[in-house]
């Protein structure tokens, strides 16, 4: 579904990603692991059009690299960015509305909002509150719901469990599996390697911009590198 070939991302002198290749199969959960600054967010941002990439990015058979984020989301790729980045002074309702505004109108838009409220009942309770007043977990739910408003076929999730209470982390991982079962392909960036690999069909490990390891979730969970770096033992 998504094929990335020889992808590089630079910010001035800094080369955040070097010659990365990866592919995401339709209907799978693919994870991208790596420590802080490894280039994970840069990779997702390049796919979504926020960072200028060099190399090839193909989605469903056509090239999308170099296109604007406004166009890439119309092709069916949504990015839920690192740090949630909800619009804090807008209400939950307004955040959701903006998430879907260019993808649906009228009854269809209302139906999509209703579907997200059914998926995240807490958002219905907080519907008229400002997003900035929500707890971290609630903001994460809102950020994911907002990304889903464009009805993406590929969802890019950047560290959705970061800074959340263990219970909420469980919820997030359950949600990812549910979304996959509903036919949404997932590319997930995570610090929590153990949990991520449990649900991953395939994984890639980045280290300072270079791809150092890839394989199925199980293979990676067994690998020395991952065990030493992330799984403590």
């Amino acid at each position: 579904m998504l094929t990335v070939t020889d992808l590089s991302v630079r910010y001035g002198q800094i080369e955040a990603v070097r010659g990365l290749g990866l592919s995401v199969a339709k209907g799978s959960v693919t994870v991208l692991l790596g420590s802080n600054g490894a280039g994970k967010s840069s990779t997702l941002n390049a796919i979504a059009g926020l960072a200028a990439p060099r190399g090839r990015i193909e989605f469903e058979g056509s090239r999308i690299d170099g296109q604007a984020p406004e166009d890439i989301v119309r092709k069916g790729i949504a990015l839920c960015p690192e740090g949630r980045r909800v619009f804090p002074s807008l209400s939950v309702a307004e955040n959701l509305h903006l998430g879907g505004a260019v993808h649906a109108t009228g009854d269809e838009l209302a139906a999509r909002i209703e579907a997200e409220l059914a998926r995240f009942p807490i958002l219905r309770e907080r519907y008229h509150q400002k997003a900035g007043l929500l707890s971290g977990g609630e903001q994460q739910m809102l950020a994911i719901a907002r990304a889903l408003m464009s009805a993406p076929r590929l969802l890019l999730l950047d560290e959705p469990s970061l800074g959340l209470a263990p219970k909420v982390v469980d919820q997030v991982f359950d949600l990812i599996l549910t979304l996959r079962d509903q036919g949404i392909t997932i590319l997930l960036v995570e610090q929590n390697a153990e949990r991520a690999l449990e649900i991953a069909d395939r994984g890639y490990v980045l280290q300072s911009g270079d791809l150092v390891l890839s394989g199925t979730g199980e293979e990676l969970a067994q690998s020395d590198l991952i065990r030493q770096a992330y799984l403590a033992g």
Partner: protein
Amino acid sequence: MDIVLQQVLNAISLGGIYALLALGLAVVFSIVGLINFAHGELMTVAGYALFLGVLFAVPLPLALALAVAAAAGAAVLTERLAFRPMRRADATALLLTSFAVSAILRVLFQNGISARPKPVPLPPALSGTVDLGPVHLGAVPLASILVTLVSLILLTLFLKRTTMGRAMRAAAEDFQVLRLMGIRANRVVAVAFALSGALAGVSALLWVAQRGSVDPLMGFIPVLKAFVAAVIGGLGSLPGAVAGGFVLGITEVLFQAFLPEAALPFRDAFVLSVVIAILIWRPDGLIPAKSARRS
């Protein structure tokens, strides 16, 4: 009684003009990070459009609408021609660009129209007073307050109820994420400029109604004041711009009315002392903006 009430009205009406101008500056600043010093020239564009409309005997409501539209159109045009090519530049380069736009427009007015003021005769209904029983109040300040109020209500409805309005509030907080939602950055910026121009246009009508003439420099002083107002309110904050505008306008009129004769020449020094006191008390302004991430 009449005099006190009239001064209060004057204060509110001047505050309203500053508020609309400061809002125009804030709308653009909150989204593009640009302090548009060509904002005053947008006022002037509206002023001359009104002058031409009256000259060619266009019916007044149409002439007013055309004047506001001219300022909005000019704002969009300056964005397209001058600011969009500089989108990736830093704040200083943007600021210098706006100085250049301002200077070019001023020269165009001076050489293309006239360096001297052109009279814009008021309709008779606005030149008199409105009599409320024993109280007689100037029609212009009353109309001005009414127009400000309606503009603020319309702007609020636009920002709260429409997709584009919401997008503009969101853009002020996180433009990148807004683009991830599929909302076109260029369109949001263009609408921000159009809105800013329309606000300058409405302020220009109110300004001209008080003065009765237009000249190439007419926008300079009010926009300087509006900039001060926007800073008092919290640069980039829309509620702040309104608050700052009213505080500044009211302060000016109060000093004007109640300072002793000998101190009147120093009115602006008194006003600026109040401004400085406010900024010492609240360095980020009365109602600070939340964040100003740039595109």
